[in-house]
């Protein structure tokens, strides 16, 4: 894969660009000031350049999301950082009962430009309260949009879209991606990268010259690298051709750009790190069944982590979390069945 910037650099650059271009942009959250620059360093350099618009807060996840709501209410564009997505549960009321509701509950449209960033996911040994994939809990709140960072999409464009929406958005960032490099500049040895949809909503990895895939694998940004690895093995070992699709928007799920591809696929697998139960994957499946019922050759298979809290020790964590092998095995099983 060609050498490219790290994803955390791309995200940091996106924020720098936002701040530079627009005086209405704020960032608010814990431990944001330089030299620390946020727990995952996403805020690096911002507080030095824009001291007035980077608000480092006390430990008050509910309170500072409320402050963000107030700033947004006055027309600002507010990016909020929750240190660990697990703590977004502390802000649930502000997000759902204030931010999302306010857009419509007063009978006329009240625009709110707000993005709540949530680092999520495990594989880092942070333990059960610092590793969850909390996306599922926020699905299905009217006027609350869910996005997720991917290895394919430019975060600058995604942030521009979220803020232009004028409705609150949650942006999930899988922690394992921060240090990885973006998938850009065309191809790697096996895969070609391209985008589907008018605005490139879906990043796609395909083995060269395969139009009718054996399997379409839809994966969240965070699990995309695992899906890609599985797809690579399947192709190299057995010439099983997967298209790996990675949307930058999770909810509402947008089937249009991929529905003709899905129709052509023999099998469909959806990958996410969350444990099963009310997940994004189930939501995706529900949409596909609804739209393509007559054309499906096989049921849709979901890949999840084991139904468990996420243990701390690496050997235990590994047993619980989705791995590339789980994706691999599920595709194989689909093809064998």
């Amino acid at each position, binding site marked *: 894969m060609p050498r490219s910037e790290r994803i955390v650099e791309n995200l940091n650059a996106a924020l720098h660009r936002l701040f530079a271009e627009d005086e209405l942009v704020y960032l608010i959250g814990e431990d944001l000031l330089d030299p620390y620059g946020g727990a995952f360093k996403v805020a690096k350099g911002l507080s030095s350049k824009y001291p007035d618009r980077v608000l480092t807060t*006390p430990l*008050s996840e509910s309170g500072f999301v*409320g402050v*963000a*709501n*107030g700033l947004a209410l*006055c027309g600002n564009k507010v990016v909020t950082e929750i240190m660990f997505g697990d703590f977004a549960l502390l802000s649930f009321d502000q997000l759902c009962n204030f931010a999302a509701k306010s857009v419509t509950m007063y009978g006329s449209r009240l625009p709110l430009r707000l993005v709540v960033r949530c680092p999520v996911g495990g594989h880092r040994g942070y333990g059960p309260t610092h590793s969850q994939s909390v996306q599922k809990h926020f699905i299905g709140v009217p006027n609350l949009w869910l996005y997720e960072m991917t290895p394919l999409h430019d975060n600058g464009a995604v942030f521009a879209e979220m803020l232009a929406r004028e409705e609150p958005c949650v942006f999930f960032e899988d922690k394992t991606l921060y240090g990885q490099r973006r998938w850009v500049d065309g191809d790697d040895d096996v895969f070609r990268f391209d985008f589907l949809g008018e605005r490139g909503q879906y990043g796609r990895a395909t083995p060269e010259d395969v139009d009718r895939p054996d399997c379409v694998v839809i994966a969240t940004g965070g699990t995309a690298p695992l899906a890609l690895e599985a797809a690579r093995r399947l192709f190299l070992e057995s010439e099983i051709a997967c298209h790996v699709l990675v949307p930058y928007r999770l909810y509402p799920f947008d089937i249009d750009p991929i529905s003709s591809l899905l129709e052509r696929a023999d099998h469909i697998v959806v990958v996410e790190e969350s444990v099963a139960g009310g997940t994004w994957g189930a939501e995706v499946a529900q949409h596909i069944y609804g739209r393509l019922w007559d054309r499906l050759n096989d049921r849709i298979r979901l890949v999840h982590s084991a139904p468990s809290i996420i243990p701390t020790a690496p050997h235990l964590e590994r047993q619980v979390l989705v791995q590339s092998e789980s994706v691999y095995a599920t595709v194989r099983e689909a093809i064998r069945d």
Partner: protein
Amino acid sequence: MLTSELRPGGRETAPTRLDDDDLELLLLIRHFERNLLDLFSAGKLNGTTHTCIGQEYVPVALARLLDDRDYVFSNHRGHGHYLSRFRDPAGLLAEIMGRDGAVCHGVGGSQHIFRERFLSTGVQGESLPVAVGVALHLKRHEPGALAAVFVGDGTWGEGSVYEALNMARLWQVPLLVVVEHNEIAQSTPTTLQMAGTIAARAAAFGVEHRRVESADVNAIRGLVAPAVERVRQANRPLVLEFATTRIGPHSKGDDTRTEEELRSVRARDWYLAYQKVFPDQFARLDTRQREAIERITRDVDARTPSRWEGSCPGQSES
């Protein structure tokens, strides 16, 4: 000293004379809400409503101290707050009855009102941090304006109140927290839900506090005006606590206080005090407002149901 009690013109003193405008506003709110309770009893309203009967003088006293650039965050008991700001009984009644001309098209109802810089919601405590964000914005872009939040004593049980006070003081923003301390939360007396005092809770965060015992609109204004001005000029958050009385039920017909408690509470009604001390002015304005509300009610009741553009909006897929 960060906290002080403002006693002059206490609840037992006779009230001073109000100009017609103030007294009329008080009576407007009173008749508006009495009428709501009647409409409920008559089965003409559904859902819920929370009247501020007995507390009307708080927003009326503050009305002249606030201006259009200020944001006001109201709560479940918000009719008085709204009417003091907009004098729009028809728009509010239409909202509550779901009729044409409703300020929020009937979508928000009694508890969820938005108009210009006025906003209410039904989740207690949620508005405080939001108001801090607004106040921060005002400090930077509209110096001299403030964000006011009305809350009850019971709402001081919610953690978000403290998260907000902490940030308000750290960032020195023009936040005015108006506490309508009526010694009760729904059915629970304050003694069962609040340890310590509001004064001490403000002090805990280095936030200024004033407690107002008076129910005299003129006296209140005189007493609190300088402190409110300091909020604007010095960006100093202020907790302004009013010792007040909820005379009506929590919502409708759900008052579980004893007859004795209710008697004592009713005896402190500003309505009786002004009636007694200024009988002529009172009678004239009282009749006028009663009739106005009757008229408005007939008018609003006859209107067609409110329409809402987004009645089945969906998330505009794109």
